[in-house]
Structures are given as structure tokens and as C-alpha cells.
């Protein structure tokens, strides 16, 4: 890779993976070294330049879109802030009895600005990401109705991370509107918050209050942060290279030729894909957190041991946490707390009681959340189904909750005992795996066919060495993946008990510390899936 080609706009799409050689061996070390040697005052500006350079190297001229969004967010944020200031001044000048009416006037004014800004931001995302899907479906409908009109299907190149930074932009505007934060008059600080290079590709979706000031007040690199950050990147690299990428050939084979396999093999494929998705995404998040830690920045965690969840609802509080909280804060509560929904809750409670009364408004909001969640992942019916699948599961869980409690009471089942909790965890994992199978299936109809085979032809009788060869996996791969998963499981159990393994090892003597780091490095070098026979797998969530 020569320097001129490295510096060409949009030439480095391999940078989308934080585990690529381009990122880990070139971009990150160069950034860290330059950051460390320049004067303190220049460091925040350097991070901003590095972030824009990173975006430009991946998406080229589409950086103009990011700039437009930043300028829009800055402008509308200040506009909303101006309305708040005018409101405060106006309220001081009127008698108490007129205050309520005046507040309403200003509320409507800021609502209009917020709505206009949100429509612009979300509208941009809708046009770029969803217009081909929308046009294709309109064309199919027209064809079905025998109307001889067909629209050209538009095609856009998506700027990297558009689904992530758009949500950050909207959350910033909402938080200013709600008075949670003051609008930032410093467009450069806002730009760094929106574009910080470790998070731009796959999140986490940060709130302005969480990271903007941290990023703007970065300090010199501390050895402790460098060390802990590097170990976290290594841990993520292990998840990605040893597990996710090693499983990839088998998953690809099963999902592309599912018709050739028994239901049991398809189930194994679905389990493998769920593991791959977790290791790919959470591994990338480990790298993101690690890189941020090197610069002394703490990002909100996106995963909290999701496979220990006892219900689907809990699973989504532990998986892609920042997306879930975004939907909760900016869709679920605003919908349930709108006037019509509040009225519905009040009247429904009187008729349906304390459990089912609020469930009515709650389920409408939940539907909105899961429709948006499904669609956010991609413009295909499979993703919408994925959202609706979780909506139905969570809603059903809420509906039957009183019956389950009564049933357990009647049969004297102790829902707090270990065995019951294991049952709940296994049940949740099975439901998650089925959902992820539809998520990965090439088409929605394919997902249904695979599920049908899992139900009607559930057998492992064809599983032998010959089949494993066809699936591009051998006993060696299976053993490596199982050992790595056992390693992650032990660390997860310790984390669940509140023990930070990285912190605990860091406190031990130098021999143990370095032995642990070298063991991890050797494990990745020896057992990682790279080199001859392996194709580097693109980070799955970067496509969303």
C-alpha cells in the first residue's frame, strides 16, 4: 500500500473494520503518536482532523453530507436555545396568570423548530437508505394492481455510519429542546462529538452530555489508559478473529444452501450466526472502547452480557444498549406521554385494571419502537419482520405475566431458584436465535423456509465428517471456537459478579500481567482466522 493510494478520498474502505491492518497498523498508531507529541492545546483539533480524515478516507466526497448535518444541528440547536432564552425573559415580564399561556406559545414555537430539524435529519436518512426499498415496493404494488407505471429505482452511496450519526444528531436536538443541555455555540466541539473516528462506523450512539466535553477536554495519553485500552482491543480482536470470522464460512454455506441441510443443521447455523453476530459486534465495541480509552475518553457501554437475560425484554436492555435507550427516550416515552396516550391509559385503567390498562398505550408505543428498530437495521421486509417478532414476544410476555405468576404460585414453583433462572435464560436464548435466523436469512421467505425445516425436519443424523467438510469446518475449528467461547463465558460470569478482569489482572505483578497479555496475543496469532484460506469479514453492523 503506497502513500498516494492511502491518501485518496474513499480509497480505504477497509478502514470500516477497526481490526483491519489499515486501522490497527497504520491509522491508529500514527494518530496516537502524533497526538502524543503535539502540544496539549492542539490535541482536540487533531482528533477532529483525524476523525474527518478517517471519514474522508472511507466515504470520500460524502463527507459533505456529514458537514451539512453538523452545520444543521449547530444552527437548529442555537435556534432552539434562543427560543428558550426568549421564553425565560418573556416569563419574567408577565404576571403569574399569563405565564401558562405564554409558555404554551414558546412550547409550540420550539416544537415547530424541532420538528422541522428532525424531519430534515431523518428525511435525509430515509431518502438515502430507504428510497430504493420504498420504490421497489411501490413498483410491485403497481404491477399487482395492473397499473402500467414503474418508477426508476434510485441508488445512493451511503456515507459511513449514517444510521448512527443521524441518531446522535436527533438526540442532541431533542436534549436541547427539553432543556437537558445548552446548545453548543462551538461548531468544532459539536463536529468532534458527531464524528469521533472510533465510534463513527458502528456507534455506540452517544448523547452530547456523555462525550462532547470529554472529547473537547482530552489530555495527554496516560500509560495506564494505553495499556488497558490495548488489552480491550486485543480482547475484541480475539472475539472477531478467533470466533466470528472462523464461523463465517460455515454460516455462509448453511444460509446460502439451507435446502441441502436438515433442520438440526440449520439450527446449528442459526446458533453459529447468533454467536458470530455477538462476537463481531461486541468485539468491535471492545475495540471502540479500547481506542477511546487510549485517548482518555469513556464511552457508554453497548453490551452487558446479553445471553444471561431471563426475558426478551431484558435481552434488549443488555444488547446494543445505546440503540435501545435511544428508542426508549426519543420514541417510547414521548409516545406514551403524549396527551391522547395519557388519556387512553387513564380510561383503560378504569376499565381493564392496573395491568392491562397501561398495556394498551404501552403496546402502541412498543409497536412504534420495534417498527423503527427493525427498519433502522436495514431496508428489507426481513428486518421489519425481525422488529415485529420482538414486538410480539415482548408484548406477549407482558400480557401473560400475571398468568405466569399465578401459575407458578399454584404449582409452588420458586421463580427465584437457580433451575428456574436457567430455564428462563435457555428459553430467551432459543427465542433470540430464531430471531437472528430471520435477521440473517437472505429473504423473509427464506427465513420462513428455514424455520419450517427446523420444525419439520429437526435431525442431526446427517452430521458427519463428510458434512463438516462441506460446511467448511473441521473438529479443529470446533475445538478452538468452544475454547474461546468458554474463555468469554468465564469472563462474563466474573463481570456479572462485578469483577473487572482487566482491572484485576492490572493489579497483579508484572510477570502475571505480561503473561496474560502474551497469552492473549499468542492465542489470536495461532488460532485467529486470517491469512490463506480466509477472507476478512466486513463488520456486520457497519452495513446498518
Amino acid at each position, binding site marked *: 500500500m503506497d502513500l498516494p493510494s492511502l491518501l485518496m478520498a474513499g480509497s480505504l474502505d477497509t478502514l470500516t473494520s477497526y481490526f483491519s491492518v489499515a486501522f490497527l497498523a497504520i491509522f491508529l498508531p500514527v494518530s496516537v503518536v502524533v497526538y502524543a507529541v503535539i502540544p496539549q492545546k492542539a490535541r482536540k483539533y487533531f482528533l477532529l482532523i483525524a476523525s474527518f480524515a478517517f471519514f474522508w478516507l472511507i466515504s470520500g466526497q460524502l463527507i459533505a453530507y456529514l458537514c451539512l448535518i453538523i452545520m444543521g444541528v449547530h444552527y437548529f440547536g442555537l435556534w432552539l436555545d434562543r427560543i428558550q432564552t426568549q421564553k425565560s425573559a418573556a416569563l419574567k415580564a408577565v404576571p403569574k396568570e399569563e405565564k401558562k399561556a405564554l409558555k404554551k406559545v414558546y412550547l409550540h414555537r420550539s416544537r415547530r423548530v424541532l420538528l422541522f430539524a428532525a424531519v430534515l435529519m431523518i428525511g435525509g436518512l430515509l431518502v438515502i437508505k430507504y428510497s430504493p426499498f420504498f420504490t421497489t415496493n411501490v413498483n410491485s404494488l403497481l404491477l399487482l394492481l395492473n397499473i402500467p407505471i414503474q418508477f426508476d429505482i434510485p441508488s445512493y452511496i451511503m456515507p459511513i455510519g449514517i444510521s448512527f450519526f443521524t441518531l446522535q444528531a436527533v438526540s442532541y436536538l431533542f436534549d436541547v429542546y427539553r432543556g437537558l443541555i445548552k446548545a453548543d455555540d462551538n461548531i468544532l466541539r459539536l463536529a468532534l462529538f458527531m464524528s469521533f473516528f472510533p465510534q463513527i462506523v458502528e456507534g455506540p450512539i452517544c448523547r452530547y452530555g456523555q462525550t462532547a466535553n470529554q472529547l473537547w477536554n482530552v489530555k495527554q495519553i496516560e500509560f495506564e489508559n494505553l495499556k488497558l485500552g490495548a488489552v480491550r482491543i486485543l480482547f475484541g480482536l480475539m472475539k472477531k478473529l478467533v470466533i466470528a470470522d472462523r464461523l463465517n464460512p460455515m454460516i455462509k454455506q448453511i444460509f446460502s444452501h439451507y435446502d441441502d441441510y436438515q433442520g438440526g443443521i440449520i439450527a446449528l447455523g442459526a446458533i453459529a450466526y447468533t454467536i458470530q453476530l455477538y462476537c463481531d459486534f461486541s468485539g468491535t465495541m471492545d475495540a471502540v472502547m479500547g481506542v477511546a480509552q487510549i485517548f482518555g475518553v469513556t464511552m457508554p457501554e453497548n453490551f452487558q452480557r446479553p445471553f444471561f437475560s431471563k426475558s426478551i425484554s431484558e435481552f434488549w436492555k443488555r444488547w446494543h444498549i445505546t440503540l435501545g435507550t435511544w428508542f426508549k427516550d426519543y420514541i417510547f416515552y414521548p409516545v406514551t406521554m403524549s396527551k391522547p396516550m*395519557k388519556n387512553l*391509559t*387513564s380510561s383503560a385503567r378504569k376499565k381493564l385494571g*392496573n395491568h392491562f390498562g*397501561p398495556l394498551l398505550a404501552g403496546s402502541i408505543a412498543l409497536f412504534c419502537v420495534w417498527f423503527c428498530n427493525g427498519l433502522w437495521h436495514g431496508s428489507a421486509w426481513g428486518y421489519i419482520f425481525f422488529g415485529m417478532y420482538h414486538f410480539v414476544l415482548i408484548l406477549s410476555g407482558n400480557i401473560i405475566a400475571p398468568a405466569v405468576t399465578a401459575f407458578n404460585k399454584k404449582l409452588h414453583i420458586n421463580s427465584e431458584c437457580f433451575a428456574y433462572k436457567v430455564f428462563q435464560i435457555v428459553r430467551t436464548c432459543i427465542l433470540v436465535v430464531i430471531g437472528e435466523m430471520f435477521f440473517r436469512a437472505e429473504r423473509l421467505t427464506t427465513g420462513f423456509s428455514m424455520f419450517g425445516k427446523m420444525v419439520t425436519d429437526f435431525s442431526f443424523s446427517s452430521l458427519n465428517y463428510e458434512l463438516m467438510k462441506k460446511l467448511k469446518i473441521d473438529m479443529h475449528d470446533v475445538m478452538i471456537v468452544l475454547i474461546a467461547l468458554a474463555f468469554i463465558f468465564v469472563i462474563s460470569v466474573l463481570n456479572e459478579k462485578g469483577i473487572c478482569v482487566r482491572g484485576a489482572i492490572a493489579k497483579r505483578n508484572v510477570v502475571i500481567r505480561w503473561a496474560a497479555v502474551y497469552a492473549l496475543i499468542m492465542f489470536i496469532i495461532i488460532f485467529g482466522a486470517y491469512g490463506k484460506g480466509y477472507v476478512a469479514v466486513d463488520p456486520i453492523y457497519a452495513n446498518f
Partner: protein
Amino acid sequence: MDELIEILEDIKPDVDYEGCENLIDGHYLDSLSIISLIAEIEDAFDVTVPAVEVVPANFNSVKAMWSMIERLQEEE
């Protein structure tokens, strides 16, 4: 404050509301209970609870809820 405790007991009985300091964090009140609670608080105390106030800190104890209500009444 008694009226607030009555509302809470009506929505979800069998909880020691006066002694509990982690109603949200301890999963005593879920999102459905919160939806009911907000609708009832708005009716009973003539306040509007904006979405921004729906944070665990405002609902973890009766005391926290009461101070939120008083603050909202003052703001109204």
C-alpha cells in the same frame, strides 16, 4: 404525600413505598406502572410531567416523586 402513596398502592400493591429507595432500580415499578403513575399524578396534582422528567432519579422513592411534583407545580 399520602395521596401519592395511595395512587402507588392502587397501581401496584404490596410494596413498602415509604421505606423503599429503589423503586425503579429494584424493578418494583416497571415501564407500564410508570405510564399509569404519570397519568394519575397529572390528574391528581394538576401538573404535566414532561418526558424529560421520566428518569429513575425522579421515581426511585416517594420522596423523589413528591419533590418532582412540587417542582412541577411551582413551574406551572
